[in-house]
C-alpha cells in the first residue's frame, strides 16, 4: 500500500517536485551546521543591518564585495568599488559540534575572518540571517513532523478504540475532546504556555511548544478517526472477521488501520503546515522559541520592528518566505496524496 | 410499418472516453417506439440499456460520454443535432424520466410541491393554479390526501411514495414518452408490484408511450408490448413480448429467461449464462 503510494507520487510531476524539494529542505536542515557560514548566535555589532553581500567572479574565483558603513543612523552601507574577499570552500572555522556530538572545524564555505559573508544580510546585532535561517529550519521543519507523529498516535489510539468499542469509553473521550475544542485554540495555547513555561528552561521550550500544539491537535484527529472507525466498523468485512472469531485488537490492526492509513497520510501531510504556522505564530507573539535558539517565527518577530519596514531591510523578512515555501510544498504534496488516496475527495481538511 | 414512429433510433453508437481506452457502450443500435406503445429494453448491467435511455435527450454528461454516430429521431427531429435551447423544452415536456433510486433522484432540500410545481411552471406557463395542478398530479399516482403531502420533504416519504412522487412529477406535463429506467429495482417486492400496477394503469389512462428499462423478464411480461434485448451494446433480439417470451430466437434471450427461478416450477439447477459463448456468437 505505502510502496504503491510512493510509486503513484512519482507518476505525478507536482508530487515529484514537492517531494524532492521537501527532501532538499530537510537535508539542509539536517546539515544546517555545515552549510551555514556562521553560528546562529555569532554577533558582529559593527555590521548591524548589513545588506546581502554581492557576489562577483574575479580572477577565476568567487568573491564577495566588501561594504562600508556610510550612514550609521540609517544603517546605510555602500560597496567599496575595488575591495573583494575571496570565498573559500570547506573553509576553516571556529570549532563546533555537528548534531551536538561530532566535532568539526570546517564549514561548507566562508571568507577570511576579517570580512563577513552575508548571503541574506545581517540582523540588528550583525548576525548572519542566512545562517540563522538554516538553523531555524531545524525547529520549523521538525516541529510539524514530531507534532503530527504525537497527535496521530494519540488520535488514532483514542479515536480508534472509542469508535470500535463505543460505550462509556467513547462517551468519556468524546466529552474530553469537546471540552478541548470549546476553548479557542490560541487562548488555550497561551494559557498552557504561561502555566508550564516555569517548568522548562529555554532549551526545552521547543519540546514544550510541540507538546502544547499536540495537546490541542489530538482531539480533532481523534474525532475524525472515531467517525471513520464507526463507519468502517459496520462494513461487512469487519463483521466477516468477527464471524471468523478474530480478536478485536487484530481486527483493529489488520482490518481497520490499513483502511485508515491512506486518510491518515493525507491529513497528516495537510496538517503539518498547521504546526509550522502555529510555531511561527507563537514565536512571533514572543511565547514560542526563545533566544538563543532560533526559528523562523522568532526571526520574523524580531523583524516586526517598524524600523525594518521603513528602512527596507527586506532580507529580515526572508523567514516569512521560507515558511511560505515549506507550507505550500506540504499543502501541494497533501493534495497530490489526496488525489491518489481519495479520488472522490471525501476528506475535506 | 405504418406512419412515422414517435421515436426512432438509428445506428446509435456511444463511447465513453477517447482513443485506446474508449469503451463502446452502445454499438450501433436501431429500434422504434410507436405512439402509445410500451417497449421494454432488457439486459444485464453494462449492456448499454441505461445509456441508451439517457441519450434520448442527451442527458449523458459529455465528456466522458461521446455520441459517435447515428441519430435519435423524436417526432422526426434528431435530438443529437438540436441545440441546448431547442432540446431543453423537449425534456420533461415531451420525454420525461423516472429513475432507479427515487430516494436520491428527488432533491432533499425542496418540498415535493416545489419540485413538481417547478416542472409545471417551466413547461405549462398557462397553468394558473399550479398548486391545484400539483395536487391533481399527486392524486393521479394514488397518493392519498395529496394536500397534506405538499409540504413534505422527500426523506419523510417511503421508497414507494418517493417513486410515486417521481412519477407524478414526470407526468405533470403530459409527456408523449415516459422513460422509466429500472423504476422498481431499488424497491421492496410488494412495492415493486404496486408501482408496476400504477404504471400499467396510467399507460392505459393517459395513452403515452413508455420505454421501460429493466433486467427482469418478469416485469416485461407484465407490461410491455414489445421487447428489445441488449447484450454488451448490441441489440440481440427484438419483437412482440409474447413472441419473444414464448419463442426466443437468440440464445442470450433464451438464457436470460431461463436463468430466473420460477415459482412452482422447481428445477434442480438454474441455467447459468455463458457470456463468452454469446460474445463469440456476436462476432461475424
Amino acid at each position, binding site marked *: 500500500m505505502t510502496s504503491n503510494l510512493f510509486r503513484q507520487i512519482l507518476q505525478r510531476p507536482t508530487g515529484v517536485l514537492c517531494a524532492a524539494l521537501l527532501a532538499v529542505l530537510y537535508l539542509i536542515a539536517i546539515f544546517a551546521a555545515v552549510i551555514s557560514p556562521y553560528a546562529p548566535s555569532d554577533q558582529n555589532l559593527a555590521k548591524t543591518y548589513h545588506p546581502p553581500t554581492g557576489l562577483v567572479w574575479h580572477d577565476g574565483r568567487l568573491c564577495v564585495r566588501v561594504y562600508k558603513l556610510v550612514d550609521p543612523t540609517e544603517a546605510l552601507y555602500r560597496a567599496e568599488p575595488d575591495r573583494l574577499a575571496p570565498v573559500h570552500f570547506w573553509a576553516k572555522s571556529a570549532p563546533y559540534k555537528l548534531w551536538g556530538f561530532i566535532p568539526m572545524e570546517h564549514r561548507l564555505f566562508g571568507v577570511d575572518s576579517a570580512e563577513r559573508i552575508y548571503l541574506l544580510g545581517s540582523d540588528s546585532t550583525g548576525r548572519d540571517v542566512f545562517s540563522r535561517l538554516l538553523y531555524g529550519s531545524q525547529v520549523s521543519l521538525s516541529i510539524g513532523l514530531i507534532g503530527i507523529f504525537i497527535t496521530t498516535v494519540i488520535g488514532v489510539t483514542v479515536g480508534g478504540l472509542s469508535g470500535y468499542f463505543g460505550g462509556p469509553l467513547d462517551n468519556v473521550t468524546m466529552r474530553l475532546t469537546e471540552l478541548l475544542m470549546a476553548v479557542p485554540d490560541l487562548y488555550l495555547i497561551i494559557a498552557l504556555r504561561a502555566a508550564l513555561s516555569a517548568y522548562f528552561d529555554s532549551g526545552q521550550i521547543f519540546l514544550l511548544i510541540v507538546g502544547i500544539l499536540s495537546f490541542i491537535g489530538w482531539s480533532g484527529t481523534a474525532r475524525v478517526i472515531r467517525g471513520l472507525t464507526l463507519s468502517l466498523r459496520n462494513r461487512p468485512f469487519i463483521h466477516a472477521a468477527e464471524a471468523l*472469531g478474530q480478536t478485536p485488537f487484530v481486527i483493529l490492526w489488520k482490518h481497520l488501520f490499513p483502511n485508515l492509513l491512506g486518510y491518515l497520510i493525507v491529513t497528516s501531510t495537510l496538517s503539518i503546515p498547521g504546526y509550522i504556522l502555529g510555531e511561527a505564530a507563537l514565536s512571533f507573539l514572543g511565547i514560542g522559541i526563545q533566544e538563543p535558539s532560533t526559528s523562523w517565527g522568532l526571526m520574523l518577530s524580531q523583524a516586526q520592528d517598524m524600523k525594518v519596514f521603513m528602512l527596507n531591510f527586506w532580507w529580515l523578512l526572508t523567514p516569512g518566505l521560507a515558511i511560505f515555501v515549506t507550507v505550500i510544498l506540504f499543502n501541494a504534496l497533501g493534495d497530490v496524496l489526496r488525489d491518489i488516496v481519495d479520488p472522490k475527495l471525501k476528506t475535506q481538511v | 410499418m405504418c406512419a412515422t414512429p414517435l421515436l426512432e433510433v438509428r445506428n446509435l453508437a456511444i463511447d465513453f472516453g477517447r482513443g485506446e481506452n474508449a469503451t463502446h457502450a452502445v454499438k450501433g443500435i436501431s429500434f422504434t417506439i410507436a405512439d402509445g406503445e410500451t417497449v421494454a429494453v432488457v439486459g444485464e448491467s453494462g449492456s448499454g440499456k441505461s445509456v441508451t435511455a439517457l441519450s434520448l435527450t442527451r442527458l449523458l454528461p459529455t465528456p466522458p460520454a461521446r455520441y459517435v454516430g447515428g441519430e435519435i429521431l423524436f417526432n422526426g427531429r434528431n435530438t443529437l443535432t438540436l441545440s441546448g435551447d431547442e432540446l431543453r423544452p423537449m425534456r420533461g415536456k415531451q420525454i420525461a424520466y423516472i429513475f432507479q433510486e427515487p430516494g436520491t433522484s428527488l432533491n432533499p432540500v425542496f418540498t415535493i410541491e416545489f419540485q413538481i410545481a417547478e416542472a409545471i411552471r417551466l413547461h405549462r406557463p398557462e397553468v394558473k393554479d399550479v398548486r391545484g395542478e400539483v395536487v391533481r398530479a399527486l392524486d393521479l399516482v394514488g397518493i392519498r390526501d395529496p394536500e397534506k403531502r405538499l409540504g413534505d420533504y422527500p426523506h419523510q416519504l417511503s421508497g414507494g411514495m418517493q417513486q410515486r412522487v417521481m412519477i407524478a412529477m414526470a407526468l405533470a406535463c403530459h409527456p408523449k414518452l415516459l422513460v422509466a429506467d429500472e423504476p422498481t429495482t431499488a424497491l*421492496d*417486492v*410488494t412495492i415493486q408490484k404496486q408501482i408496476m400496477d400504477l404504471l400499467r394503469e396510467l399507460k392505459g389512462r393517459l395513452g403515452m408511450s413508455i420505454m421501460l428499462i429493466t433486467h427482469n423478464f*418478469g416485469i416485461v*411480461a*407484465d407490461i410491455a408490448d414489445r421487447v428489445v434485448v441488449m447484450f454488451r451494446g448490441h441489440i440481440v433480439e427484438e419483437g412482440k413480448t409474447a413472441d419473444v417470451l414464448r419463442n426466443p430466437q437468440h440464445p442470450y434471450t433464451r438464457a436470460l429467461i431461463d436463468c430466473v427461478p420460477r415459482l412452482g416450477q422447481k428445477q434442480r439447477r438454474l441455467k447459468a449464462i455463458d457470456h463468452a459463448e454469446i460474445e463469440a456468437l456476436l462476432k461475424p
Partner: protein
Amino acid sequence: MTDTPLIKVEHLKVYFPITSGVLQRKSGEVRAVDDVSFEILRGKTVGLVGESGSGKTTIGRALIRLIEPTDGHIFYKGEEITRLSAKEFRPYRKKIQIIFQDPYNSLNPRLTIADIVGEALEIHFPRMTRLQRRSRVADLLAKVGLKPEHLDRYPHEFSGGQRQRIGIARALAVEPEFIVCDEPVSALDVSVQAQIVNLLQDLQEELGLTYLFIAHDLAVVEHISDFVLVMNRGKIVEAATAEEIYTHPQDDYTRKLLDAVPKL
C-alpha cells in the same frame, strides 16, 4: 425426524433500544425480532424471506453472534449457545459461518485474496505453515470456481460474482457445518445470481452443508430451500415447506409476496 436439529431457535427476541437526551436514557425500543422459533435440520436449507425491515437479517446476525439476542435461546446440536462468552463461543465460529449480501463491502479492500481467505485458517488452524495455508486457499478458490493466479490480487480486481465466490471461499475455509447466507444474490445480476445459487447447491451436496438462506425474492428462496419461513415486522407469519408455501399459502402477507413476484 427424530434427529436433533442442527440449529434450534426458541423464542428469540432482539430489541434495539432507542435512546434520547443527554444521558442516553432508553426511551423506547425497536422490536427487530420478536419471539421467533424455528429449527434447521442437518444438510437442509431453510429459506427466510421478508422485505426490508422485517428482521430477517437480524436473525442471521444473531445466529452467528454478531448481535446479542435480547431474550430466547439458540441451540447448536442441542447445546445452548446463546449466552456463551466470546471465548466460549470461539469453537462454534468454526462450525457456523456467514456469507454477506454486498460483495463490494464484504472484502477488505487492502488485503489480497490469499490474506482474506487465509485469515480464517490463521485463526482456527494456527499450526498450518504459510505454504500449507496458501495451497489450502488455492484449493478453496478452485472449489468456488476461481483460479490459483487470483491468490495475490486485490478485491477491486474482481467482478461482483467473483467477489461473492471469494466470500464463499472465506466462509468455507474453516470447514463449517452451517452457513448463514445473508442475501447472497440480491446485489447480483440475474445471470450471475443463477451461477451463485448453483454453486451454493453444489457445495451443499458435496460438503453436506446446512444453510439458512435469507432473501427478499420468494422465487429464489423457493428454488433453493427445503423449508421456508416468511417474516413480517419481526415475526414469522408462515412456516412451511417450499411447495406448501407456493400451493397453499396460509397468511395474507405470504399471498401478497407471492402475488408480487412477476410471472413469466
